[in-house]
């Protein structure tokens, strides 16, 4: 007699979906009748959807942050390169939307990094590069974990939907 394999692994607080191979065994095991089992599965699907929304939002945030960090790294690298040539860097920057002003940046030993929460700290170019690189790596790593979580989540959703279909039959 076919049995349901219990692969209720958990991942970062997300309950794993139980794979249902044989509906009868599943129902006797959980002690539910068909309707309660169906509503339980439906509830699980809602929970999964909520967590998915949260993860997708986090993913969007990270995907926006990563290009920003790359731009900062670019700027610091350019400043460092210019430092060697003893030339001032002339740049046009935006003062307000559509209005630009010229800035003359002398050889820079240090840069100021905006850390958030109204805090800005001065760093030497090397320290700044190191810090930005670290942030960049962390962001990339978090994004990878998030993507893996999303995949796990979608798998659980698929398994739960299968269980629903099996029970409806």
């Amino acid at each position, binding site marked *: 007699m076919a049995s349901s394999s219990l692969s209720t692994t958990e991942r970062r607080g997300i309950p794993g979906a139980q794979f249902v191979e044989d509906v009868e065994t599943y129902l006797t095991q959980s002690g539910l009748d068909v309707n309660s089992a169906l509503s339980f599965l439906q509830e699980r699907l809602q929970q999964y959807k909520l967590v998915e929304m949260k993860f997708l939002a986090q993913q969007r945030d990270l995907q926006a942050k990563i290009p920003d960090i790359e731009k900062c790294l670019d*700027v610091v690298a350019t400043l460092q390169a210019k430092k060697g040539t003893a030339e001032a860097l002339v740049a046009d920057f935006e003062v307000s939307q559509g209005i630009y002003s010229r*800035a003359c940046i002398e050889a820079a030993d240090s840069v100021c990094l905006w850390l958030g929460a109204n805090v800005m700290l001065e760093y030497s170019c090397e320290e700044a590069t190191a810090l930005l690189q670290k942030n960049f790596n962390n962001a990339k790593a978090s994004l990878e974990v998030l993507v893996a979580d999303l995949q796990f989540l979608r798998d659980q959703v698929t398994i739960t939907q299968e269980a629903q279909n099996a029970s409806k*039959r």
Partner: protein
Amino acid sequence: MQQGGGSEAEVTWEDQQNINKFGRLNNRFHELDDEVKIAKETNENLEDASNELILTDEEVVRFQIGEVFAHVPKEEVETRIEQMKEASSKNLEKLEEEKDSVLAQMSELKKILYGKFGDSINLEED
């Protein structure tokens, strides 16, 4: 992609894993599609930029670094754009390759799953 309610075929754990894998590949395929579009656009923009550069007489070009436009001599800008174009084309190639591999895996899985479930499963795009 849906799993229909066919009453003959039982879904084994292996089948479930295949279905899951297909779902993941499908998602990845859509993401890759978008990424390829963006990479192609970037490539085009860089082409246009380098063409404009050839036509301009100015010695100093305002090159965007981060949020500011730095005044950079024309040759340096040319070099930079060449580098960016190379990086961008390599990226595009990599994405296209991944897309092809994903499509190939998806067709394999389709064969297996349609073989077992026939009409009770729908693996096409809606």
